[in-house]
């Protein structure tokens, strides 16, 4: 079903409300964009919205209890919470190096979860 919806453009701080007509496959701009860059943004936002996912993962025996992580690529919006769920039940052992893959193919998205922080092993007291 083709429906009209407003998309707030995030390309610049004006934040145009772009009115589009879409059914998820077809796409048409109704209006509201002050520049051309808004068109491409509205199209991707209407047809295939994706977000970079950043969160943290448990670390055992580390100098910090967590290591921050990110998705290797933007994750389809509807898959965000499936990926988060998988990260939530994962724990890794220190040391963790920034850039290290923590989960391969998270929630069958084909996207990996990668550490963004180096966490050394906790020094024994």
């Amino acid at each position, binding site marked *: 079903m083709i429906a009209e919806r407003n998309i*707030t*453009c*995030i390309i*610049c*701080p*004006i*934040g145009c409300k772009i009115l589009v007509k879409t059914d998820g496959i077809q796409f048409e701009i109704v209006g509201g964009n002050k520049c051309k860059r808004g068109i491409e943004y509205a199209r991707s936002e209407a047809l295939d919205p994706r*977000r*970079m996912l*950043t*969160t*943290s993962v*448990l670390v055992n025996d580390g100098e*910090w*209890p*967590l290591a*921050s*992580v*990110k998705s290797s690529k933007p994750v389809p*919006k509807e898959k965000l919470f499936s990926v*988060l769920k998988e990260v939530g039940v994962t724990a890794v052992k220190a040391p963790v190096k*920034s850039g290290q893959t923590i989960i391969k193919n998270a929630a069958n998205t084909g996207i990996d979860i990668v550490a*963004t*922080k*180096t966490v050394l092993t906790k020094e024994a007291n």
Partner: protein
Amino acid sequence: MVKPEVIKVIDYMVDVAIIGGGPAGLAAAVSAHEHGAKSVLVIDRNSWLGGILPQCIHDGFGVEETGASMTGPEYAEMYIEMAEKQGIDIMKETMVLQFDKKREIVAVNKKGLHKIKASAIVLAMGCREKTRWNVMIPGDRPSGIYTAGVAQAFINLYNIMPGRNVIILGSGDVGLIMARRLKFEGANVLGVVEILPYASGLPRNVVQCLEDYDIPLFLNHTITCIDGKERLEQVTIAQVDGEMNIISGTEKKIESDTLLLSLGLIPENELARTIGIEIDNITGGPTVNQYLETTLSGVFACGNCLQVYDTVDVLSADAKNAGKNAGKNSAIQKKDKKIIAKIVPGKGVRYVVPQIISEPGKVHLTLRVEKPGESSVLHVVAGDKEILKKRLAWVNPANMIGVDVDIPHDITASTQNLEVMLGDR
């Protein structure tokens, strides 16, 4: 009890001493070293470097600077590696207590008391969050009220959930990012309350942190009461009019156990104030000249203790400038610089940094406007003479503006103020 004679005093001499090891301090250190300073020392009170960055696990850092969108911890590690490679000295878990006009720093840590004589000092102490007491929210004093940054540290560094049913006051970027973060960790985010008629954070964060998860944004609203015996039980929100007065009868009670405050940041300048460095009342940071040198010769300022920045990219660029000048200053001691003109904010402009021009030539200005608008023209004028005119497609207080302006030589003689203002197209 510790006897006075067992307190160990350790003496050092350095070219450049940097107070604060966050992004500004690290960028200044790297740049000071690259511009002639042989010994550079960074002093930080935490056990880690990078300041606030390790808890800012979201991405978007470094886009302007490197072209790549990094997370906070990644951005921090990039600068820590640079500093380590250059052999910059680091003192962690060390608190600077004071410094004097001869640039002798007194600092303390577990090893004892340290006296550090520096040819140049760079202030990079960062900023603090405003609290409930900066805005005087009436009501009880239960637990469950945190600044957004403290809650961010709890969740992202220490693996502690601050609460379950959360209200956020203030729509700055930290507040918006915490709304999403809490949602990701399973909390109910009941809404973000903003006194202004628009969100103070970036549209990007309004869309990706609130709208994506259907978190309500209450514009023109504020919190009028906090209730709770031990733990927070409910907050009262109410609508405000154009003058920000509470409209009676619009009060609404929301049950919640946690309130996060994202009310803005205050540059941390107790050290600078104590020694008599002039502070700009609007920025909250030291008054500086185009070399980012404060009113105390040989002492420079950068980062969020100079002015609160929007992005770390711009902050680092300015901090490198401060570090460069401190590095050069330590190599060739210059005589005291004169004030040839003051820069003052005019119509529509809230503040301008630097505030002082010491020499003619190219000067980089950073400024903020008073309110959002479209199609404006930025003017820099000296009396009736216009020295810069720049068209801006849009302006927003949330977006710092940076412009280069050429200060002509004939300003020197007149010692007049330069006014920076907005005009219509």
